[in-house]
């Protein structure tokens, strides 16, 4: 999974999960519930739908707010995370997830203008 960093990852939301099975994706969502084991949690996207994320190791910190997860989509539609990124909202930067969703839809509506499989130089 180490080379997932070098590979172009499509940004998706929940409705696009099924089309990206076994592909590397980048999912941004708001933390809903964290499993007590800390190895899995759910995120809600800009449309209000929920996706499940699974980690290799349990979480070592408190997860809250908006998180960006990079990983592969499993057959069951679960995101197997390679790494994640918490967006700090405390500095007054409010992340507008609905706006993000709007932009996401546009990216997918116009693939000719937003190519994902771009020159993936090593």
């Amino acid at each position: 999974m180490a080379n997932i960093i070098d590979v172009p990852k499509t940004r998706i939301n929940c409705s696009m999960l099924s089309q990206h099975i076994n592909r590397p994706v980048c999912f941004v969502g708001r933390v809903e519930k964290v499993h007590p084991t800390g190895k899995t949690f759910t995120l809600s996207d800009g449309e209000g739908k929920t996706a499940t994320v699974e980690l290799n190791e349990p979480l070592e910190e408190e997860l809250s707010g908006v998180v960006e997860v990079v990983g592969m989509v499993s057959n069951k539609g679960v995101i197997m995370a390679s790494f994640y990124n918490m967006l700090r909202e405390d500095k007054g930067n409010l992340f507008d997830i609905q706006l993000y969703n709007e932009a996401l839809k546009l990216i997918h509506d116009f693939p000719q203008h937003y190519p994902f499989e771009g020159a993936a130089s090593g």
Partner: protein
Amino acid sequence: MAVRLTEGAVEALMKGTPLSNTVLQLLNTKKIGNEMTRIRVIMSDGVHSSASFLLASHLNHLFDGNQLEPYCVCLVKKVSISTLKDGRPVISIVDIEVLKSADEVEDKIGNPVSYNSNGLSSSQEGADSSTPPLKSEVELGNTFSPKSNKTSPQKHLSSTPPSTSSEHRKFNFKSNNKTPSPQKPFPSGSSTSTGRPGPYSRESTPSPSKGRGRGFTGKSPMKSADASPGSATKVIPISALNPYQTKWTIRARVTNKSKERTWSNSKGEGKLFSFEIVDESGEIKITAFNNEVDKFFSLVEPGKVYYISKATLKVANKQFNTLKHEYEMTLHTHSSIVPCDDGDGVPDVHCDFVPISELEQREKDTILDVIGVCKSAEDVSRITTKSSREVSKRAINLMDSSGKVVTATLWGEEAEKFDGSGNPVVAIKGARLSDFGGRSLSALFSSTILVNPDIPEAFRLRVWFDGEGHAVDSQSLTEARSVGSGARMNWKTLSDVKTEHMGHGEKADYFSCVATLVYIRKENCLYRACPSSNCNKKVLDQHNGLWRCEKCDRDYPDFQYRLLLSANLADFGDNQWVTCFQETAEVLLGHSAQRLGQLRDTDEEAFNEVFQKASFKTHIFKNRVKLETYNDETRVKVTVLEVLPVDYIEYSRRLIRNIHKMSPQLDLSEEQG
């Protein structure tokens, strides 16, 4: 060719029900009228056919363009039914669309029998159905009264009161044979008139006298339906009002009434007032001028229901009329407004509320309706307008169940009497959306402000607010610190400066852009300036500890460091050299000129670091661009007037909006390859 006709439609229409969107087959057409062409059509629903259909004159082009050939199947989208004095209907087709052309259909669908308006169906000729029914229909139809026509488009369309039958006489069907009784079954093929055009010839004397012009009724239809509503005419919905129908009555509630206003222009002067009415089907604006103002101003009260009939309909002037109705009404001498006691069922107000969260997606300057709980209201303040008028204004904050808040500005009396205590539910109908401070609303002269209105939406909000709403952390669409002081931001990209030849005109051009600072000239960014306030002239070193200012014509013991920055901005398309004066330079560098002057003289490394840090930062730049000549060289000079941080959410929204706006063009260019 299987296409389903709306069976039963002809019967329903003939009985007076103004059905919309019926699928009917056109059996035949006939051009009638001499000076004013009208097209009469025989329509069938497969069960019945009728020649009581008339094409509204604005659709004549369909006939002229041969689109209405016999047997074509049409979608009769909208009709307007009026009744002759003898009770027979005239169905005026106001909107029609050909679904299948005559070539595609080829044949008559079903076996329609001619529907007689008194319910009797009579048999028709068999095979060759075109000619004979038309002739017999001719006899039925020749009692047409011209009331459905106001469309002498040559002159009288606007506000001439239709009671002057000068219009009506243009539209006169008088039969040469005596009025046959409608009871008579259609004699097959026997037409007592010589040929077809006969019955529709105009009456010889187009005299303006009210009675004669009508033909058979002997009375002006205007006189028939008197002030007593419901006697001859039945109530029609507001949505069915159109200029092609003169005999109607509506029952509606007044929602909005303006004050009496006078005007005086080159064409003359007078007074007017207007009001808006609503019923279950929609709303429409009514205006009264001069005499009618005196007659109706005190009678019309907002909130009350009235029967209104006899007024002029014309196309709505969207400049002053923000309602959705295609037409608007003007009262005239014969207009009748009678209070109605039974206002049940007539809604109080017709609003299409836009959720506050959606306001960001809407274009500025659109007129819309909003409803929300007044979370807070400022005190009323008085301001003086450009025209030196003093007016009261009050800003109130409205929040709805989306949790978003928007600031609405009330003016004048509304502002003064508004009471925000108790967090009332406020509905504003016809407010203007502005991009002041992001998104905000302004009540217009024509807006209606309703406090705690009696509508379900208001109750829903009340329940929500009392329950959880009052504790919600709201997000305001209207920033307290408005970006750009409310001025319209003219957003451009740097390449636009060259492609649009900005600054080449006589006056300077102003624009805003999002750009990144890619280079800042460190050398000569500071100069020594005159210390007196407001004089920024460079001072000359007298070498005796004094500094001379030419402008003030004085020597000073010290100076002030001031910034004059030359920088290069870039975006995805282009780059641009700009000049930043003191204020904007300080914002970009993050330090005062004084401090920078100090650093330059003392700590060069720290001085350089300031410039390092400032580079490659993105900001919103508000600029002024002008062509200037200096020593024989003419160049476009850009000066930065203001530097603002990029509000990414606002920027993102703007980009998304622009993409949406451009997307139809994008789709097209894709199709073309």
